[in-house]
């Protein structure tokens, strides 16, 4: 550049003095491309400094520069496309990672299987009423402790007058609850392994962009092995992108995903096949050491017992006549929503030179 400037001044001096640097019969050469390959010749041996007649088009900026106009900003990059396991680092000559992403979402998303605790037949409470047929006011109750196995327990509030009665509440099916099995954490999308095809674009340290209205690109000899010379278009959508003639092959890759997937909550409910029939024994001794004074079978419908006499019940015991809790049905755990690839990047690539 400096030599050129000196030459220019020298020429001006000589020109004003009546001489000159180039003969008047020697034509001046101008170029349509920014960086002419001065000595390049086409296949016929004719000068082709802008690679106008080179089918391989190894030079990104050929004669098409003058007649192809990009309406958007374009960034020349070296683009690698392949599987994530083979993803290379950006080379030293182009150390700046311009883009990392991919196309085709692989990230699986399966909701965990819903599980329930085992069902179990449970005794119901015994209520004492001051009138017959389980009418009148409740005057006492024996509430079974959790997971009661029917062993004797004191029931000091169960004595009733002569008109009193006992309500044996229905047996129940306990358990059948959602197992406290925490959902696994959502998939981690920090790595690029979620893509079917992974892409990485590298560029020079400077933030050079193509001149307005012209495509440009990296020369093949600049490209690291496995990379292609491409333009990343800025400010355009994948639908509206149009690639210039020198970079005809278009690709759309995405930099990230929007994870909108979730799972419906788990629920557990008895299947309705349980048969829980108990026998409730009422005793006058709190430790049930006496003979059973009253005994009634109780099923899922309950029972109202009317002894037709005053009682002084102090203890309750029970046992299962039929202890078949049946099955528990789990529901929920279905996938909702969807995952979307976001932040698209449009690349226009030249045709790779045949090896």
């Amino acid at each position, binding site marked *: 550049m400096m030599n050129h400037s000196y030459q*220019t001044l020298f020429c*001006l001096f000589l020109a*004003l003095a*009546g001489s000159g*640097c180039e003969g*008047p019969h020697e034509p001046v050469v101008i170029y349509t*491309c920014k960086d002419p390959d001065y000595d390049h010749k086409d296949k016929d041996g004719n000068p082709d400094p802008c690679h106008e007649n080179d089918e391989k088009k190894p030079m990104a900026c050929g004669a098409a520069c003058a007649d192809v106009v990009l309406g958007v900003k374009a960034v020349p990059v070296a683009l690698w496309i392949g599987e994530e396991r083979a993803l290379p680092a950006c080379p030293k000559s182009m150390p700046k990672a311009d883009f990392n992403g991919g196309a085709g979402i692989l990230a699986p998303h399966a909701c965990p299987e819903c599980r329930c605790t085992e069902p179990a037949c449970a005794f119901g409470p015994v209520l004492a009423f001051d009138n017959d047929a389980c009418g009148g006011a409740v005057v006492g109750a024996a509430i079974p402790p959790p997971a009661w196995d029917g062993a004797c327990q004191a029931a000091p509030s169960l004595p009733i007058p002569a008109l009193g009665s006992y309500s044996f509440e229905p047996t129940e099916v306990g358990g059948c609850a959602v197992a406290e099995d925490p959902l696994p954490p959502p998939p981690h999308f920090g790595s690029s392994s979620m893509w079917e095809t992974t892409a990485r674009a590298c560029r020079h340290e400077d933030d050079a962009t193509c001149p307005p209205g012209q495509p440009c690109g990296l020369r093949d000899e600049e490209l690291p092995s496995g990379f292609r010379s491409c333009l990343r278009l800025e400010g355009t959508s994948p639908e509206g992108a149009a690639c210039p003639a020198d970079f005809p092959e278009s690709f759309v890759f995405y930099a990230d995903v929007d994870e909108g997937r979730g799972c419906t909550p788990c629920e557990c409910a008895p299947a309705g096949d349980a048969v829980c029939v108990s026998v409730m024994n009422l005793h006058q001794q709190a430790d049930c050491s006496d003979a059973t004074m009253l005994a009634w079978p109780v099923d899922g419908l309950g029972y109202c017992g009317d002894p037709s006499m005053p009682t002084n019940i102090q203890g309750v015991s029970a046992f299962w006549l039929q202890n078949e809790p049946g099955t528990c049905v789990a529901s929920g755990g279905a996938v909702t929503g969807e995952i979307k690839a976001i932040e698209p990047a449009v690349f226009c690539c030249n045709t790779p030179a045949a090896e």
Partner: protein
Amino acid sequence: MLRVGVLVGASLLVVPGLARAAPGVSASPGERRSRLDAAWSIGAGPALQLGGYLPNVLSVGGTATLMLRTFGDDGWGGGLTLTFTYLRTVTPATLYGAEVEGAYANGTVGVCIRRIEPFGFCGGWRMPGGAYFPRTPGATWEHGWRTSGSLNAGVDMLITLADRLSLRPILTLDVYDWPTRLIVNKRRDPEWRSFPLFATLSVELTLDFWKRDKPTPQSK
């Protein structure tokens, strides 16, 4: 072309002679007034060129002129001029896909003869000059190359604005032998050649920074 040069050169030699050899413009001494004998002046102003060394139709710029004028008693006058011209293209021209724009500068030596003010007829030699333009898109204008010189002829006016101040429009037509040749991307065909004729119009504001008047003959 050579013949024209000889003519121009001849007129350069003849002009002072005209002043000396012309018969006296005698008038009665009482009627004579002081009149210009010689003057050095400088002038500068804008210029517009149609055609030129580049494939752009219009160029604009400016000229600056150093001029010596002399007048004889018979009313004939002559002058020598040294003019520097700078012009640059107005809009880029497209030549086989390449955009061309640029500038050029050169000097002209010339002579003007005038019988009466304000008109003069001028001829001269525009010397080869420098031209500057980008060879590649977006490059700086750093390339200079020799343009051929040209002969020119034209007409000027000296419109007196004040005692030493004049306005000097001048229209010249240049013709030259060696056209500029431009080729694109080293392709020999097609090649652009400049048309060997172009016109330049300039308007200079001229200041006589030194002048000498003929002494007025006094009646004795």
